[in-house]
């Protein structure tokens, strides 16, 4: 993968994420973790090679088919990417509204989830008034509100205290237990090691030997 005419940022990457699996993607800063996630959340098409998701060859997929696939993916961005002019509630409700959900269902689901992540008292606040940890929890809530089949998270516990971080990881585990495939990118190797989940290790744009293969084939 390369951005425009720039240098190759990912090279010789080959792996499979089985349905309902849980993986960490580890590696030092600049290793290409965010670029790999970008490929996976369909923010960029592979410049060469073949990438298959949900049975579709992404390189050959017409643009109009992308929204349906993206709706199966939840993404927690490293910089949160909350929309500043929308309240916390409306930010989290956005994926549901895009899918045309009814407002009653939205009110129930979003309220419940935000209470669960500890933002029940900040439903009507705007992102610029939130702390880093609160923004991260709102971003996670937005990613999981639609119960995605694949959850991608870029440094999801980076801005929260250890206790809140553990709580978020439990949320990911919970989602994984009900069938969501989870891939969490982190530069904190100890977090990945402690989890017991297989780790894809990325360095210099290439995948190294995984700590534990599990369902992953490299």
């Amino acid at each position, binding site marked *: 993968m390369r951005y425009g005419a720039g240098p190759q940022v990912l090279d010789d990457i080959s792996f499979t994420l089985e349905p309902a699996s849980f993986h960490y993607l580890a590696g030092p800063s600049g290793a290409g973790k965010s670029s790999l996630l970008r490929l996976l959340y369909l923010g960029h098409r592979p410049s060469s090679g073949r990438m298959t998701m949900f049975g579709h060859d992404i390189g050959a997929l017409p643009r109009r088919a992308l929204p349906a696939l*993206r*709706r199966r993916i939840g993404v927690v961005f490293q910089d949160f990417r909350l929309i500043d*002019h929308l309240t916390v509630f*409306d930010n989290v409700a956005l*994926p549901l*509204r*895009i*899918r045309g959900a009814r407002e009653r269902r939205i009110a129930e689901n979003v309220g419940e989830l935000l209470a669960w992540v500890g933002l029940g008292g900040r439903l009507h606040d705007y992102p610029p008034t939130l702390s880093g940890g609160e923004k991260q929890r709102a971003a996670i809530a937005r990613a999981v509100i639609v119960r995605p089949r694949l959850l991608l998270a870029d440094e999801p516990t980076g801005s929260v205290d250890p206790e809140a971080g553990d709580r978020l990881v439990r949320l990911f585990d919970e989602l994984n237990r009900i069938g969501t495939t989870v891939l969490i990118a982190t530069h904190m190797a100890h977090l990945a090691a402690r989890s017991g989940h297989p780790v894809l290790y990325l360095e210099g744009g290439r995948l190294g030997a995984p700590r534990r293969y599990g369902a992953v084939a490299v």
Partner: protein
Amino acid sequence: MTVFGRRPALVLDDDPATRFLPWIVALTVFFATLAVAGALVLDGASGRWRGDDRGSLTVELPAGAPVEAALAVVLETTGVVGARALDRGELLALIEPWLPAAAFPADLPLPRLLDVTVDDLVGVDVAALGRRLAAAVPGARIDDSALERRRLRRAARALEAIALLVIAVTAATAVGVVVVATRSSLAVHHETIELLHLIGASDGFVATSFAREALGKGLRGGLLGLVPAAAALVVARHFTAAVTLPMLPRLDFSVEAMVLIAALPLVAAALAMLTARLTVLRALARLS
């Protein structure tokens, strides 16, 4: 613009790229209203001029000219179905507005007028009739009012075409402005648009946000343009109502015409909405 009590994902309200859109639409609707009103007035006048044109000619004879000879020439002309000479009383009535009959010397000779009725379907070769009349009655002259009305109708049609051109040019300008404003807005909001795409929004969802905003601004601008244009028409009607010249177009509008004029803001808003939507869809389709 807040829809259903919540803010849309894309807030274009405060967008500098589209802030002036209502004013552009207002100008468009202002000029379009005046142009449509002008075209309607001219169309009505043109129809009236056609209606008045019931196939008649007037032949003017010098005072003392042989009326019977002139009548004979006229009546044997193809297309003429009748002709009669106006008597002195009728002639005096015609000049009454300028010279009261009582003040007119009884012995002063008057030129004679022949009122000629023409079969519209057959028509009359006015030039040939003029030559034959001049030969029979030197000084005879044909006043073909139908010819004047035809010229008026031609002029009215040309003015109507100009009015339609004004409408087309202003509409095209507004469309161009909407395209440019929408493209600028797309550039301003590209990060939010990318985010919406990444969480599953289709191009249609994004385009709908822009289209809805353009519709709102178009409606606001349309009303802003319609009000002064309607006021201008009311003022113009007030001042022309006192003029009684029969050929002058009248600023009277039928109910249908008023509905058409009142619908112009809606048409402008719909055009802005459609343009914004198509612009967004085209721009997004170019993305990989």
